[in-house]
């Protein structure tokens, strides 16, 4: 496969792909931590999610620097950077959602559905890692991206019923409502961005061939 040939040329490319793998694995850890924090209602664990977001930022900077120091052929660099930026966007949304969780209180009526979305966010993230590994091997990504779309659809279904449910919850002031709205919006947006990331992997895979 062309990707493997490119990788065999230089250590720089191998360093970049190792960092990209690390970046996605860190995102999986952050999603797992987020879910556990929600399940156990552990605010300290939720603060750790925000720390992982900063760690993700640092890995993103390293990857972009390495790419522009000369890793990969110039025509590949923008798409690789774009993919890394999309993954970093997931970290940002996850961090903001963790902040909303810490700022507010999630009503008991919707807690189990929110935990279910957090669980699917972890699963979709793991699938992104599998898709990335498959791309490095030059494999067909069709089945992997379909699995990501299936998870995304499941999260969308839960989101729509959550939106209906929250209308029945009494809100005492503007900020309480705003924080809850931002929390749900963030929680349900993560899978959309991961879906975009997987679409971008598909584009990179096509460019490689």
């Amino acid at each position: 496969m062309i990707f493997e040939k490119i990788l065999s040329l230089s250590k720089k490319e191998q360093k970049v792909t190792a960092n990209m793998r690390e970046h996605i694995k860190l995102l999986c850890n952050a999603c797992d931590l987020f879910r556990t924090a929600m399940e156990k209602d552990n605010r300290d664990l939720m603060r750790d999610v925000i720390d992982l977001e900063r760690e993700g930022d640092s890995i993103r900077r390293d990857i972009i620097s390495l790419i522009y120091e000369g890793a990969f052929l110039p025509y590949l660099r923008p798409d690789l950077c774009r993919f890394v930026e999309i993954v970093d966007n997931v970290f940002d949304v996850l961090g903001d959602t963790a902040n909303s969780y810490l700022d507010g209180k999630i009503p008991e009526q919707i807690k189990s559905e929110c935990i279910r979305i957090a669980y699917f966010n972890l699963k979709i993230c793991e699938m992104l890692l599998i898709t990335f590994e498959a791309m490095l091997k030059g494999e067909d990504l069709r089945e992997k991206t379909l699995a990501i779309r299936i998870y995304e659809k499941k999260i969308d279904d839960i989101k729509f019923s959550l939106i209906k449910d929250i209308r029945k919850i009494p809100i005492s002031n503007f900020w309480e409502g705003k924080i809850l709205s931002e929390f749900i919006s963030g929680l349900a947006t993560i899978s959309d961005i991961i879906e975009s990331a997987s679409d971008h992997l598909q584009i990179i895979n096509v460019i490689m061939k």
Partner: protein
Amino acid sequence: MKVQEVMTTKIEFVDADRTVYDAVEKMVDRRIRSLMVRFPVKGLNHGIITARDIVFKVLAKGLDPKDIKVSEIASKPAICVDKNANINEVASLMENKKVARILVCDGEEIIGVIALLDLMAGTLIMRARGEHDF
């Protein structure tokens, strides 16, 4: 893969003494194809009414859905599996019992429903993960 990973947790209910027309209304409003039927007995005594039941047992026979109670056409008792059951067990159960939907239970509590489409989604996810125990 366990059923709880792919089941649908949003379950809509209809009381057994309501008319089939009420059930149709609810299905159209919520854009769903089945409803759990709640009988006035506590415990796991639930049934299922599907769009298929309504079409073949009522509408296609020219019967008035406002004259027929949900309890008359619902499948009862609904089949239930444990939340930790494997999706291949559920597929076999669906094939043997000739049903397209099965309830998912945690002890005596109904926590979800798994349909054919959920099984298909679960199988595709397993293929993508490289797991082939289905």
